[in-house]
């Protein structure tokens, strides 16, 4: 992975020695040790395999990419497909631009001109970069120890990084005004580390911090984030943020992301949520599966919420679900794999908390069944009639000329068929029906 002369024309330190050889029946295998500057590797090769060494050189790597992309590059671009480079390939491209070597070999066709590769790269909109912390082939070269420069990607809009070393990234400044989506996996321990490497870690992020002003979607899933660090503020236009599979315990630093509509914090270490609406008031989708939540009060005023995922937490009390009852737009709720789902009649009791909206709510990926809705209606009727009797007696007490109370429509749909269902609170005796009620409600209840 090196050329004989560096970018300033200085000769590199090169050591190549044959460390040994073996003779077999029809061929000889050589053990060759190569050292260029501090990089050292060993190869065992038959003589005819020596050309293989060339493959691992910069010219070899860029050359094979060039030939492929001269033919296929435009097709690739036209279709808008993402293109994947390894860190080693990008490093080779970066180094190739500093090599005092012609863009194509003398006598070879212009097809193999390095310009075609840069041409392709400069137009590419979606790029995936994959690093590695393991030694490359039989060398002592670790790809993630190499610097890689993103500046040749002049039209880059969507960047995916997988297992890269953020501390070796250069040339990302020009992406700040352009990048639309960023996805980073198995690479960082803080968001800031990737987005603002040029500032010392202790420097406060003020209004002078350079931001990724076009980025609307960021995915930092499966990294080593122990918190939502202030680096997230460097993407002020974020609409979607995925932080799945980290070790985050709290919601921090999200209050400036006023466009944030989707947040995924599943597989983290969240135990408690406080007044989430003060941080992320415009949230429509919140995914909190596989955390350690016991209470939901902190979500009670997240009024824009449509989808809420709470699978596999530690919620054991239905009264916690009641905190969600006033979320007017909530349409999808996942409570599966929480202790409370073991409660008798969990679904009916949970759905009932949503009152007249129970029929619209998708709970654990299922709409309420007709049977569940019937039961809920009965419970509502009972509750309302109880309220009515209380309020009418109160009304009578307050003023004798108030109009007669009328039952809400839900209670006027007799007869109820409630065989085989349980009431939420069977231990409470049914209140006497008020005198003004004309509907004959016939309910039979099986006691457990």
């Amino acid at each position, binding site marked *: 992975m090196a050329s004989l002369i560096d970018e300033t024309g200085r000769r590199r330190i090169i050591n190549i020695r044959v460390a040994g050889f073996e003779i077999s029946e029809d061929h000889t295998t050589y053990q060759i040790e190569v050292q260029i500057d501090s990089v050292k590797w060993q190869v065992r090769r038959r003589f005819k395999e020596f050309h293989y060494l060339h493959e691992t050189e910069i010219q070899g790597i860029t050359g094979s990419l060039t030939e492929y992309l001269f033919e296929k590059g435009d097709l690739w671009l036209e279709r808008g497909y993402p293109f994947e480079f390894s860190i080693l390939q990008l490093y080779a491209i970066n180094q190739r631009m500093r090599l005092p070597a012609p863009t194509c070999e003398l006598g070879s066709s212009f097809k193999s001109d390095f310009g075609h590769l*840069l041409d392709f790269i400069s137009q590419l909109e979606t790029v995936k970069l994959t690093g590695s912390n393991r030694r490359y082939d039989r060398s002592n070269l670790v790809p993630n120890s190499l610097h890689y420069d993103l500046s040749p990607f002049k039209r880059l809009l969507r960047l995916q990084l997988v297992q890269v070393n953020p501390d070796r990234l250069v040339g990302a400044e020009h992406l700040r005004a352009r990048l639309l989506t960023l996805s980073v996996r198995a690479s960082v321990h803080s968001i800031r580390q990737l987005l603002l490497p040029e500032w010392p870690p202790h420097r406060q992020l003020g209004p002078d911090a350079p931001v990724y002003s076009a980025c609307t979607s960021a995915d930092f899933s499966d990294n080593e984030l122990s918190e939502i660090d202030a680096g997230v503020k460097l993407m002020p236009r974020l609409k979607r943020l995925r932080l799945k599979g980290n070790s985050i315990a709290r919601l921090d630093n999200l209050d400036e992301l006023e466009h944030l509509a989707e947040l995924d914090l599943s597989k983290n270490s969240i135990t408690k949520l406080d007044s989430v609406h003060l941080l992320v008031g415009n949230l429509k989708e919140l995914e909190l599966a596989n955390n350690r939540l016991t209470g939901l009060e902190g979500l009670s005023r997240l009024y824009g919420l449509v989808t809420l995922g709470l699978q596999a937490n530690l919620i054991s009390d239905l009264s916690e679900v009641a905190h969600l009852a006033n979320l007017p737009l909530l349409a999808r709720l996942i409570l599966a794999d929480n202790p409370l789902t073991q409660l008798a009649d969990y679904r009916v009791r949970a759905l009932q908390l949503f009152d007249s909206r129970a029929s619209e709510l998708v709970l654990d990926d299922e709409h309420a069944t007709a049977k569940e809705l019937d039961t809920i209606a009965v419970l509502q009727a009972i509750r309302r009639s109880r309220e009515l009797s209380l309020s009418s007696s109160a009304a009578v007490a307050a003023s004798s000329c108030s109009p007669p109370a009328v039952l809400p429509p839900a209670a006027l749909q007799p007869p109820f068929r409630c065989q085989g269902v349980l009431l939420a609170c069977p231990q409470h005796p049914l209140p006497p029906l008020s005198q003004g009620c004309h509907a004959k409600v016939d309910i039979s209840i099986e006691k457990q």
Partner: protein
Amino acid sequence: MTSGAYNYSYIFKYIIIGDMGVGKSCLLHQFTEKKFMADCPHTIGVEFGTRIIEVSGQKVKLQVWDTAGQERFRAVTRSYYRGAAGALMVYDISRRSTYNHLSSWLTDARNLTSPNTVIFMIGNKSDLDSQRDVTFEEAKQFAEENGLMFLECSAKTGENVEDAFLETARKIYENIQNGVLDLNSAEGVTPKPNSAGGAAPKAEGRSDCAC
């Protein structure tokens, strides 16, 4: 995405040369992005840019290599001349030394390119007329004596920048038409690659994913 970006008949290779700080990278940026780049960093090694233009009704893609002007990168720069169909040789009208060095740049260009390479001389920073250090007439005469095309441009205002790139392309195209330039030898001109396997299949109703 329009298919215009992939619809061209030829690729021309250009190289931009000249002293450090004459505005080579800014000329390239102005030409490809139609914007002036205010604080442009020194070029390390080479930079690269492309744009598709139209010459006599033919779409041509220009692949432009922008080289480092610093002396210490001269070895790198020299290696990029090979196969250039056009060379833009730039000096700064407000710095006489950059003009005086043109003969050395020209020697490199003549030695390292083919005789058919079109060399276009550019006096950049024409917006700095008040600080002018090289007269138009003088430069014009130098160009004529050496058989070069010549214009004064401003990468800052964009004045004449298009013309310099386009006139160079016109001259190259003329050479192709006249048979002066042989398409089969690597002289910086390639016909567009055929996407392998016949006609390029159309992208199937798949919009650019906005994931």
